[in-house]
């Protein structure tokens, strides 16, 4: 393979994603749909005193979306929601290569957009909204 999108860190997270599951009685939840391909992700969050204390996701999606959600969970748990809401893809160096794969950028941004939607009390978002 020539230029690869599939950085070892992405492969590892997609094969063994962290934070997969649901949270009963969560404070925030949203569903994200990728308009391009029909991929789906559901995000459940618990927020206490302005801090994001738990994150779980349900993936029906590609390796890129799965890895992005897994890494995002690692990054935002324990952070103030103001920070969790504003996090961008450039916070994850494994995805730098996406500049060479423009057709796949929305795969990686879908979990970010879905977390943002949940924190804004929206029930769902799409890749067209981000």
């Amino acid at each position, binding site marked *: 393979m020539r*230029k690869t999108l599939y950085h070892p860190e992405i492969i590892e997270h997609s094969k063994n994603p962290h934070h997969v599951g649901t949270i009963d009685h969560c404070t925030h939840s949203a569903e994200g749909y990728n308009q391009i391909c029909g991929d789906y992700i559901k995000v459940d969050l618990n927020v206490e005193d302005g801090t994001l204390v738990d994150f779980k996701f349900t993936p029906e999606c590609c390796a890129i979306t799965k890895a992005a959600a897994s890494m995002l969970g690692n990054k935002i748990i324990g952070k103030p929601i103001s920070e969790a809401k504003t996090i961008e893809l450039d916070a994850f160096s494994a995805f730098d290569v996406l500049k060479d794969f423009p057709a*796949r950028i929305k*795969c990686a941004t879908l979990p970010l957009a879905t977390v943002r939607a949940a924190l804004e009390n929206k029930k769902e978002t799409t890749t067209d909204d981000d």
Partner: protein
Amino acid sequence: MGNFNVEAIRTDFPNLNVPVHGKPLVYLDNGATTLKPQSVIDAINHHYTQETSNVHRGVHTLSQLATSAYEGARVKVQKFLNAASEREIIFTKGTTDAINLVAASLGDTLTTGDEILITEMEHHSNIVPWQILCKKKGCNLKVAPINDQGELILDEFKKLLSPKTKIVAIVYMSNSLGTINPVEEIIKLAHANGTPVLLDAAQAVSHTHIDVKALDCDLLAFSSHKLFGPTGCGVLYGKESLLNDLSPYQGGGDMIEKVSFAGTTFNTLPYKFEAGTPNIAGVIGLGAAIDYIEKVDWEGMQQHKKELLTYATEQLEQIEGLRIIGTAVNKIAILSFVIDNIHAHDLGTLIDQEGVAVRTGHHCTMPVMEHFGITATTRASFSWYNTHEEIDILVKAIKQAKEIFK
């Protein structure tokens, strides 16, 4: 394989010479759009360099040349489909536009409680226009189910035909499953019920010789770009008597006979349905595509594609964890599949690096994906310029991708 010579055919398609990521292009996305032969590109170029003009009502030379080329293409389409008259050939933006035309104009004649009958394997373009119509008019959309091979369950289809069924709109050959529907039988059943039939022939048009008289379909839609012609252009065929009874789709120039503020009278067929300046270059390009196709050894081409499908099916079935979606007995050269532990998009990106172009996703058939409990497939769709060697490259690229996710 008769006189069919795939290597000679390949030299007609300049895009096949353009490498992708430094590798020879293996173009297996023909279900989405076909490549264009040089003669089609030349015809469009000729229009824009030699006879740029609007069509109809022009007395100057260029306008007459453009009109003659445009109307000449209509006759080519008429003969290609074996339609009774060129008045039955309406140029549209494509298949979707043609179906929307029917949904709007025929939809005008429908009332509350009327039914439209489609199948579970339709492209979104043959679902959504009917849903919009149903919402507007209080009609009901009935959906004939498919089995797990991706074939229409004809008995269920029969049960859904009723006196309320005002149109049967059905895909001739499925874009995501490859299934060839028994349209001759469907048309007979619908006609026995007094119901007209619209065929979505977007895929079928490049896979079989369509004869609208023999089929006895009432309406048929296809796109130029899936038939080696340019994008943004398509055809609605309709029986003249039926089209005459329908109200216009869009209002504007060219579709009128006389306009005054007291009232407007409409043009005759086919112009009644062609408001505004049409896609002149597109139509001329479609005409050139038909000229090109007519020169090909059709029997040899059909046999070649059949062999490609058989070979590709055999090769893909040997890949561990790969499951073919759409295993109808009667199939065109389209192979949709899923692989354990690799999402279609990841596979599509990985094999693109090897120069292999396939389509990934739901292929605008989300209900089909739902039927099979999946969200996406990878689809390899073949045309006459594809080769057995290209299938070997596809298989090798899939195996390499599997290594990454093992």
